[in-house]
């Protein structure tokens, strides 16, 4: 496992939406997916995921259904709603703009000013 970064406040929701957008997942699955797509670079305490999931469900961005996992355990599966999909796009755009701006700002050299 490489070096881990503390997750920024407010970014957990975006990560969850992104993870779920690739297909319905249960809570543990979401954690694994985030680990996978971030190259295990982001650390989340496992329990901390759930309050965020409940919040997103309440905001109408996710919906949940009980199903069966690949190793035959009963688990709750989350997927994006239409609203969730829209929100994900907005947040992605926002992040990309912010990230580009931050990268540009941090890579500025004296001669460019």
């Amino acid at each position, binding site marked *: 496992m490489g070096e881990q970064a503390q997750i920024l406040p407010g970014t957990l929701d975006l990560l969850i939406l992104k993870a779920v957008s690739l297909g319905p997942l249960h809570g543990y699955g979401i954690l694994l997916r985030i680990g996978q797509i971030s190259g295990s670079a982001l650390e989340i305490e496992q329990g901390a995921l*759930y*309050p965020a999931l409940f919040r997103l469900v309440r905001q109408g961005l996710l919906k949940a259904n009980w199903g069966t996992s690949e190793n035959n355990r009963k688990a*709750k599966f989350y997927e994006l709603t239409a609203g969730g999909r829209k929100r994900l796009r907005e947040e992605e755009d926002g992040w990309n703009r912010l990230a580009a701006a931050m990268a540009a700002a941090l890579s500025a050299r004296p001669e460019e000013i």
Partner: protein
Amino acid sequence: MRLPSYLRSVAGRFLRREDVAEEMEQELRAHIALRADDLEREGMPRAQAERRARVEFGARERYKEECHQASGGTGIESLFKDVRYAFRMLRKSPGFTLVAIVTLALGIGANAIVFSLLNALVLRPVNVPHGGELYEIEQGRDHAPSQSYADYLDLRDRNKSFDGLAAYEIDKAGLDIDGTPAQTFFYEASGNYFDVLGVKPYLGRFFHAEDEHGYNSAPYLVLSYSLWQTRFHADRNIAGRVVLVNKFAYTVLGVAPPDFRGTELFFAPAFWAPMVDDEQLNGFNTLPNRGNRGKWLVGPLKPGVTPAQATADLNSVAAYLAKTYPSDDDGMSFALTKPGLVGDMLGAPVHAFVAGLMLLSGLILLAACANLGSLFSARAADRWREVALRLALGSTRARILRQLLTEAVLVSLGGATAGIAGSIVLLRWLSAWQPIPDVPVNAPVNPDLSTYAVAVLLALISGLLFGIVPVRQVLHAHPYQAIKAGSNTLAASRRVTLRDVLLALQIAVCAVLVTSSLVAVRGMIRSLQSNFGFDPHDAMQVNTDIDMGGYKLEQRPAMQRRLLDAVSAIPGVTAAGYTDRIPLNIGWSDSYIYADSTTDYKPSNIAADAMDYSVSPGYFEAAGTALRAGRTISWDDSKDAPMAAVVNQEFARKLFGREQNAMGGHFKIWGGKRVQVVGIVEDGKYKTLSEDPQPAVFFSILQAPSSDTWFIVRSSRGTGELGPAIERTLSGMNTGLPFIISTWDRELGTALFAARAASLALGVLGALGAMLALTGIFGLGAYTVSRRLRELGIRIALGARRKQVLRAALGRVFRLLAIGSAAGLVLGLAATRLLSFIVYQASPRDPFVLAGVVATMLLLGLLAAWVPAMRALRADPMLLLREE
């Protein structure tokens, strides 16, 4: 999220709360199982994998809580959970809960009762439409509410501020419904009385200003609802019925509504009759005499007129009166006050008394809060492990605090419920209480909505107050340390803790209460032992009013003489006499006295305002009033003889400088009549027990006649036999007069009523204070001993003596007791200065009181510490060591 869907989500979750919690639990369990599966696949044994999965998951309880909040189940739902949990915790320690609830019930109950008094006597206006806008006119000089009828007419017609001005007076007459006259108290009221107040009849009609056509022109009655119920069997065709009042025929016009009790709070009249009939109702006509003041005036101010403007307006009328009628109204001025308590005459002392009670009952509640604060703090310390465990499982401190506060508020609401229930019972009883025999004096103090609201508010405030005490403990709780050490109390036992301060505070408050109640009781005992100027023991008194039998003015002295002779002839009677009124009873009469040299009888030349009585020969002997010089009234002091009077010592000193100069001297009364002093009697009490020495003058009842007659009969055979003998004798004479016969001791209850009520109230509050001190000391003592039982056991095992064990166990409690008592005693002595307004001779520097307080507090301390001390002495080291 929009509001409706939010509400639905909250409501839905609230209703399916169990399901949601269950679902959440399942989901978290699934997570841990899935994680454990992965770990197992990596080669870890199952049991180890599961443990690892749980650790990785983190603070499960906290996340569950956060999930709850995230899914909208915050406010109501978690409150509901808190309440349920609090109930469970309280049920687990019933002793603690009971003590806490009883303590608070006492505190809240006392406050609810006192607030009801305040509400009924001070805050709530007289019960008429727009009662809050009514004002009573009193004299500016001495704040006496009494005005003369002639002045009333001028005030009514000349003022520009009142929207109608009514006059009324409490009087009594012989009401004859079925052949036997009965003494009945009623209002003489001006014709416009009901119209000014805006009261509507329950049945029939009221009398109006148009019904008056000069003196004795309006023979009408309006019945009170209760008289109509009790004496007229609620006859709906009552209007038009003729009854006899003092043998004069009066027609019943109608019935007043049930909740209308007239315009005085303490006094409910049986009926209302027009004031213009004063001569028939009262025996003689007081209306034309401008100096005869006894009417009380009330009315609402016109819209937009302020009380200050109205006072100025009234005083311009006063200036006119002073100029036009200087002999009666010289120096006249008026002021406004609120009606209901005889103006400021009763109003001022009642307000002072209720304010004092408010203060003391507030202190009771404060003491109860301090008591509960230390109880809760001790409990929080005992629940250290629970708190630590919850913190370790991820509960937030805020959540735990809220839990503790919920418990406190729950206890305080329980206490409030019990307190309100108790106060309702007591207030019902107080409202029905008629403290003075034969006189319809009582005060309805039933609780209303505002009482309940105040009680609940106080309960919530005190719940938060004592619930907050353990906050610091919880904030400083550290789960790891708590679990490791198991107990944190030994370390803190040397420092002064919050609990110590609370106990000292509570004991101080209780000492204040005990001090004031002892001062009150002491004052009461003293007032009973003081010299009244007469001897009420072994004496009967018979009250009648000659004009209730319809006797003419000139027949009355002969009738009174006949009755006196009959009573004197009863075997065993040693002395008998009569007077127009007895001292220390409701109502009195005073006369302006002028020096013999005075020729201008204006108010500024008054030499003394003396209590006046008209007495028969034999009165002083019967009353047991000691003659200091000269002679008493004799039958020779008749109508045609020169005016003679017996005066008291204070009168003699005031008019003649020295007692010795008074004998044979002259003074003048209203109208310039010369009176000679023929005797001097000892000083006495006339209006109240706590009054300063008052000048008093006793005229011959033959020269200053009165139809109101009080016979005083003294016997060597005891009052038990005398009463029936008097009754037989008088009823055998067929006079047609109503007689009220009782012992003088009983009648004296009237004068002692205020002091008795005050002593009772203060005594009860003192007892409450003592109980709180008892539980407080017991609580802390028991707690200290139980915390240190092991240490005490070891001390005993090492050979400590009983005294040393006790000192170790309870020394601290007794030090606190001493400090608190001393502080409370000092404060209490300062407070009793306030009490001296109500309680007779309430002297704070009374050795009896000082010793009493010290002894009481010491006794309370010993009593409360007894059980914990016994437990400390019985600490068995072996048993204790085995336990741990």
